[in-house]
């Protein structure tokens, strides 16, 4: 608001205040009072848009923040220069270049984009948001949401028909529910119009298929959340421990190949080294997603199936379910004290402090272990790594690690800026730009393109980075997926309740039985026929079960 209009408003309010006082004293008529009130309301109606206009101006100005760039002689700086060149100079058939050129014609739009609050949201605030604005003139509002709200808020906004968002960052497992509910829209037309489809083949095959549902593409994949095993080479390779293990079990102490071996090795290390070092630490806190990912991963490694494909009766209460709980309980026993209270960050803290010999977690573990992430102030909530150079990477015990969550950028149905929004999605996930984003120290975006795994720049970030990237790729070849079908949210919450009840001492069989009952109730509620169809579709996805992975389908990628 200008100084002049502020002055006018002050004078008007003073006058009105005088009128109110006069009316209360009985010195003026009600009509005068009401007239004045109406004038004020009219004035407010007029000044509102003016204030709004000036606020919008401020928002635009605030949106024009500077891109945070690394020194150009660092690997990250070089990647950032290459991303700008690919966006401005080409190759002209590249997805980044095409997106920028097309988006320049749509200047005037503002994109509302959801991100998980915290570190995930820092990336569009510091890098991709301002960089996109600099290249195209299109600003964006970054809307930070806690992880569960990334599912629930878009639904609430959809029901309210608010048009609050243009782009959603969602789990692939939510796609069926959000697509069926009309929250998101397919992007096939935009892809064929703008994308260099060779870039689709640059995705690791696991991720290439993930955003597809009912034969349509519902977004662009954007975060390779592959669980891997991280272990202490100095502990596993310790000659004294090797000798003692051989003496006790008659086998070599090695990186565990199965879940039973994992528990055994973890317990052995705890018995030998605790309280200095424990065998493992698990992400078991109630309400955080560690339990659901861990259970569905091991359950399938043990031969479990989620449903009977004909009747759709839940198959949790089975020998595979009981075996899974035996193994998970054994892991808990071999873990750091307070294991059942740990969330992902607390698990990382124990690991980085050198308190733990093995953990399985998301890919930032590898970067944090080498202190690459901690060079950013934003990630100072985890301690400096005390295990630099001591960490090895391996596929999960049992061979089939969970692709736990991940992110897909999806276009909101009815977005008023659909084309500009799609173009941003294409640009930000294009090979050169996404490489920068998975290399940012504070980022929680993890490699997912073949060009990420092969990137000489990424491979030069720390001495063992090549081994790290190759392990991520190999694990993705063998990965199993979250259950990508309607109702996943219900099924997953039920698994979390089941697991935490068992950790608190409930009988595993009773907990499995109760969870199976809850699953059946969900299936009944959503419709057995519909769920059967959805399950059939899920089973066709590479990674649905260990006998149907990218590798078993002959699509595995070999990297050195």
């Amino acid at each position, binding site marked *: 608001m200008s100084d002049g209009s502020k002055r006018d408003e002050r004078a008007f309010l003073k006058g009105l205040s005088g009128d109110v006082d006069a009316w209360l004293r009985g010195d003026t008529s009600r*009509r005068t009072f009401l007239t004045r009130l109406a004038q004020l309301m009219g004035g407010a109606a007029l000044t509102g848009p003016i204030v709004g206009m000036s606020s919008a101006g401020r928002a635009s100005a605030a949106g024009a923040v500077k891109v945070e760039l690394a020194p150009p002689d660092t690997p990250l700086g070089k990647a950032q220069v290459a991303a700008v060149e690919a966006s401005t100079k080409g190759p002209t058939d590249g997805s980044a270049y095409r997106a920028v050129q097309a988006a320049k014609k749509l200047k005037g739009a503002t994109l509302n984009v959801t991100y998980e609050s915290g570190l995930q949201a820092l990336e569009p605030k510091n890098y991709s948001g301002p960089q996109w604005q600099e290249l195209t003139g299109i600003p964006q509002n970054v809307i930070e949401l806690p992880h569960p709200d990334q599912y*629930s808020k878009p639904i609430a906004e959809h029901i309210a028909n608010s048009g609050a968002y243009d782009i959603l960052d969602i789990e692939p497992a939510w796609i069926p529910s959000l697509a069926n*509910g009309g929250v998101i829209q397919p992007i096939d037309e935009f892809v064929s119009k703008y994308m260099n489809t060779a870039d689709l083949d640059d995705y690791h095959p696991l991720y290439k298929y993930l955003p597809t549902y009912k034969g349509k593409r519902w977004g662009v994949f954007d975060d390779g959340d592959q669980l891997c095993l991280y272990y202490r080479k100095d502990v596993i390779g310790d000659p004294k421990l090797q000798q003692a293990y051989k003496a006790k079990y008659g086998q070599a102490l090695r990186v565990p190949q199965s879940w039973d071996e994992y528990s055994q090795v973890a317990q052995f290390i705890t018995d030998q080294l605790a309280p200095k070092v424990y065998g493992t630490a698990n992400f078991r806190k109630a*309400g*955080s997603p560690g339990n659901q990912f861990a259970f569905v991963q091991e359950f399938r490694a043990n031969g479990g199936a989620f449903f009977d494909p004909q009747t759709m009766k839940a198959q949790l209460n089975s020998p595979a379910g009981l075996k899974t709980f035996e193994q998970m309980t054994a892991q808990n026993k071999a873990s750091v004290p307070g294991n059942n209270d740990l969330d992902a960050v607390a698990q990382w803290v124990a690991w980085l402090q050198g308190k733990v010999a093995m953990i399985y977690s998301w890919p930032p573990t590898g970067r944090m272990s080498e202190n690459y992430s901690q060079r950013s102030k934003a990630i100072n909530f985890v301690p400096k790594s005390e295990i630099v150079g001591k960490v090895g990477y391996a596929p999960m015990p049992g061979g089939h690690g969970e692709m736990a969550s991940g992110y897909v950028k999806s276009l909101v149905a009815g977005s008023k800026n659909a084309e500009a929004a799609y173009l941003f999605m294409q640009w930000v996930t294009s090979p050169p730009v996404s490489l920068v984003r998975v290399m940012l120290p504070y980022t929680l975006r993890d490699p997912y393109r073949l060009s990420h795994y092969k990137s000489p720049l990424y491979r030069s970030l720390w001495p063992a980075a090549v081994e790290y990237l190759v392990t991520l790729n190999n694990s993705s070849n063998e990965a199993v997926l979250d259950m990508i079908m309607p109702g996943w*949210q219900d099924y997953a919450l039920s698994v979390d309740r089941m697991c935490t009840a068992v950790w*608190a001492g409930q009988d595993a069989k009773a907990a499995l039985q109760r969870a199976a009952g809850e699953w059946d109730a969900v299936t009944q*509620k959503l419709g057995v026929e519909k769920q059967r169809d959805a399950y059939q579709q899920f089973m066709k996805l590479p990674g649905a079960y260990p006998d149907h992975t990218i590798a078993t389908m002959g699509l595995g990628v070999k990297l050195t």
Partner: protein
Amino acid sequence: MNQQRAAEAPAGAGVSGRSRGKSGRRGVVSAWVDQHFGVLLVLPAVILIVLLSAYPLVYSLWVDFVNYDFQIPGHAFVGLQNFKDAILDPVAGTALVNTVVLSSAMVALELVLGLLLAVAMVRPFRGRGIVMPIFIMPLFMSPAIVGQFWGLLLQRPFGPTDYVLSQVLGHPVTISWLTEAPWNYLAVVLADAWQWTPFMFVILLAGLTSISHELYEAGQLDGASPWHTFFKITLPLVAPILLLAVAFRLLDAVKLFDIIYIMTGGGPGTDTYTAAFYLYERGFQEFHLSQATAGSWIFLILTIPVITVLVRRLLRPEAA
């Protein structure tokens, strides 16, 4: 003005007649405004309340009897099915029992502590002006922050509580405050009491200060012991305001959500699910909106008798 009436108008009436007509209408409107001035002033507020409260309430009644589920298309009429789903859901039963137990325990603890604090602080002493704001401070904190704060204090293995207790007791303490019964209940009650005891304290302090000193002097003259004075003078006179504080707190405590969401996530299993947490999960995580709405109505109906009893008891001394 029509032709006939124009003809009837006296010659020369022209402008002044129109003027009289206008002023006459103005007079009628003015009189109507004067007559309904009070109504006009409250009308905007009434419209707001109808739009923001009454309409959603009526709408929620409709939602109770149809399918309103994000994952199931359409809004087909389902009769009492949503109520049946809510009643037969075993998690709902657990949540209801937890709500009763936790809210009763919280309010009882807060009442006792608040009363003790108020009695201790009612007489002026040096430093009271400093101590009092410190006691009251938790009241101004967001429950989510309180949950986070207590969660960090009690979390194993990094929270300091077990360490401090180990040092004090001289032997290792390994309590999982957030994941093991009964400690998780205790943790939730403690966190809530830490925040809301000041509320009881402030209200009860106001009640205590309003009791006339003459009554205490009379008691002293009659040789009443401090216990007698407390039970025969203080407690009966502070009882109405005490009931008011309990009613307010109970109304709030049965909605317990934030602390549960942050500290225990409802777990382990469904051990710390409260009604509000259950309804949130069904409504806004799973989007079974009809079932959640039916559950909310059931919860409301169950709450009404408790509150009615409290309010009646509260009003009884007034009536007397």
